[in-house]
């Protein structure tokens, strides 16, 4: 009984002193950073730009932009904090952008702050931009905050199969993985900010990109996706557009040593969305399927050639090979990779063609 009484007294004391030592963070009193962008600056410095949404009374959102240069990332945050009226908090960070000029020098050293800080979510999206990230972030996105707009834009395009799934966790995974190289969405800034392809990285350095026209095929080589659209250009009379319901990729290694052949087998089911030619017959469908296969195959060959030339492995073929072979050494694989013979096999089946014959 006495113990209970003592317990109650002590608990009260503790509750009364509650809050001491805990840093309060009230949503209204902090600036939630939704996007950051990094550009190269003079000297060994970077220019960091952040976007903070400021919610207006009438329901619209203004984006506050802060920008400054520093050598270190956190040094930069501290400098930005001197410009802000409320403390900056990174808990809601959704988009991390890198200028391609900066990415060419490697972003390994820059990613440290994002994986060291427990408050940053693993689902934050990364992207490489063609121009200065500052320009991307200072754009007006109608009534939206820049960070949230870009995050939604990337997300819906991943769902739509325009680009493969990417986020901070997957990026770091590919960065550390011996048998894979990372890739990120590539944003271009013209009249609009748009996804203009996929940036390819050699370990952490930006080395090249897959143009927008080839993203569909690149996606099909990377893994399974759906809902994406593929245009088939066959002149004015016969051109068509197909979107896919499913896409299955299987990888097979044939032969051994120098004669190793790698077969990437892509099986797709699609819906015909548009056809210039008029009535659809069995023969027409077959024709469309065949020309789509042909065009995809050509693109696939181009992509694979490019990957080989750059000696990068965004398709994670090394991991695939590793999982199927015992007594495996990465050195051997590195020697083998540039000499691999790639054979893409594409199979397209058009299942439906809408509500018109």
């Amino acid at each position, binding site marked *: 009984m006495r*113990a*209970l009484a003592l*317990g109650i007294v*002590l*608990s009260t004391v*503790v509750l009364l*002193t509650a809050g*001491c*030592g*805990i*840093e309060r963070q009230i949503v209204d009193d902090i600036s939630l950073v939704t996007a950051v962008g990094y550009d190269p600056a003079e000297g060994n410095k970077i220019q960091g730009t952040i976007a903070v949404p400021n919610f207006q009374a009438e329901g619209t959102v203004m984006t506050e932009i802060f920008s400054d240069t520093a050598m270190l990332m956190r040094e930069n945050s501290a400098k930005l904090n001197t410009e802000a009226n409320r403390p900056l908090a990174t*808990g*809601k960070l959704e988009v991390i952008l890198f200028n391609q000029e900066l990415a060419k020098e490697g972003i390994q050293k820059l990613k440290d702050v994002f*994986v060291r800080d*427990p408050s940053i*979510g*693993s*689902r934050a999206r990364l992207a490489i931009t063609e121009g200065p990230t500052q320009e991307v972030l200072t754009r007006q996105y109608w009534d939206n905050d820049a960070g949230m707009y870009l995050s939604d834009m990337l997300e819906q395009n991943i769902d739509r199969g325009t680009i493969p*799934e990417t986020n901070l*966790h*997957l990026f*770091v*995974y*590919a*960065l*550390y*993985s*011996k048998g894979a190289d990372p890739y990120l969405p590539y944003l271009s800034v013209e009249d609009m900010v748009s996804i203009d392809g996929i940036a390819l990285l050699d370990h952490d350095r930006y080395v090249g990109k897959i143009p927008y026209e080839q993203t569909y095929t690149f996606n099909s080589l990377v893994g399974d996706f759906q809902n994406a659209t593929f245009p088939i250009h066959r002149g004015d009379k016969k051109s068509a557009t197909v979107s896919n319901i499913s896409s299955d990729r299987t990888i097979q290694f044939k032969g051994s040593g120098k004669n190793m052949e790698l077969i990437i087998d892509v099986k797709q089911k699609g819906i015909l969305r548009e056809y210039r030619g008029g009535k659809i017959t069995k023969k027409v469908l077959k024709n469309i399927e065949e020309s789509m296969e042909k065009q995809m195959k050509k693109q696939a060959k181009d992509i694979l050639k490019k990957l080989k030339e750059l000696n990068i492995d965004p398709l*994670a073929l090394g*991991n*695939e090979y*590793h*999982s*199927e*072979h*015992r007594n495996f050494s990465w050195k051997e694989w590195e020697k083998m990779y540039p000499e691999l013979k790639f054979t893409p096999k594409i199979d397209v089946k058009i299942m439906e063609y809408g509500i018109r014959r």
Partner: protein
Amino acid sequence: MGKPVSDTLKVSSFLVFFLVHSVQVGIGILSFESAVIEYASYDAWISVIIAGIAVHVVVWMCFKMLKQDEDIFDIHNTLFGKYAGGVLGFLISIYFLILSAVTLRLYIEIIQVWMFPHISVLYLGVVFIILFYYVINGGFRVVAGICFLGTVIPLYLLLTLLFPLEFAYFHNLMPVLNHSVKDLLLSTKEMTLSFLGFSTLLIYYPFIKHPEKAHKWAHFGVMFTIFIYVALTIVAFVFYDEEQLSTVIWPTLGIWKIIEMPFVERFEYIGISSWAMVILPNMTLTLWAATRGMKRIFHVNQRKTVIVFLLIVLIANTLINGHERIMKLSDYVSRMGFYTVFVYIPFLFIAYTIYQKVRKSK
């Protein structure tokens, strides 16, 4: 032999399942993946199973050694006499005391790193210590009840293992068994540390009704622990790359970071808070065992030693600061535990068996 424990203070034999399981799953489960992958790489989940089997053997030894109303202190007395036996028993008690102190410090460190960097250890420590005192003061039956709750309530966290599978690379696990037996065993040794604490069994044994029936429940408890560890190991291995995993300090919390639900932006904060429920049985059972040891050796009032021990835990917690120092201490304690469980208990078992054989033949 000590005074037999009265029946009203005993617990049902099936509760041994929760007593064994809850004290095994503690703070180590949040970070063991990066240690276990060090030698056997992606094959290390096999090491988890091997470690579990070794634990089964030790549990079997414990049950073979002890008879009704006996505990480790009786065995010490018969084997080594009053003084040497007393010293050994004292060391066992101190081991449990240090184990509980380190567990609490590791948990507070997680709160400091992940949630409140500025929070004072003393403040959090006092809150916890009051709770522990309240539980241990209720006696062994309350501690066993907390072990039950501490297992059942956090069970929902098992479901969270499904979310990271969205980003799973199952080919990481292939090819299976691509490592030497030596590597597997080295990883096994790392893994055994996550099973420690179940040796409290040697102390609460007299508190079990029908201890012969409890034997199977103890094994079920270990099996359940193995199941959880293997599941978590596999999820971590398909989620992380090997090198990436070795850079992460708390891989389990990192797995929770990827979970996003419409109503929770970051799941790890819920996970860490729920973990208090997992730490509670850990702390109370080991502290109860430590104070029970003091009572058996020095015949002092257990309620008073509880206060003393809790204060020691609190002071120790405020004195140990910084990740490196905490890790170093935790390393020492793990090594201590390893030798207690996998060297000392088998030794005791063999010695005691020979002793009994010799006495019988006389």
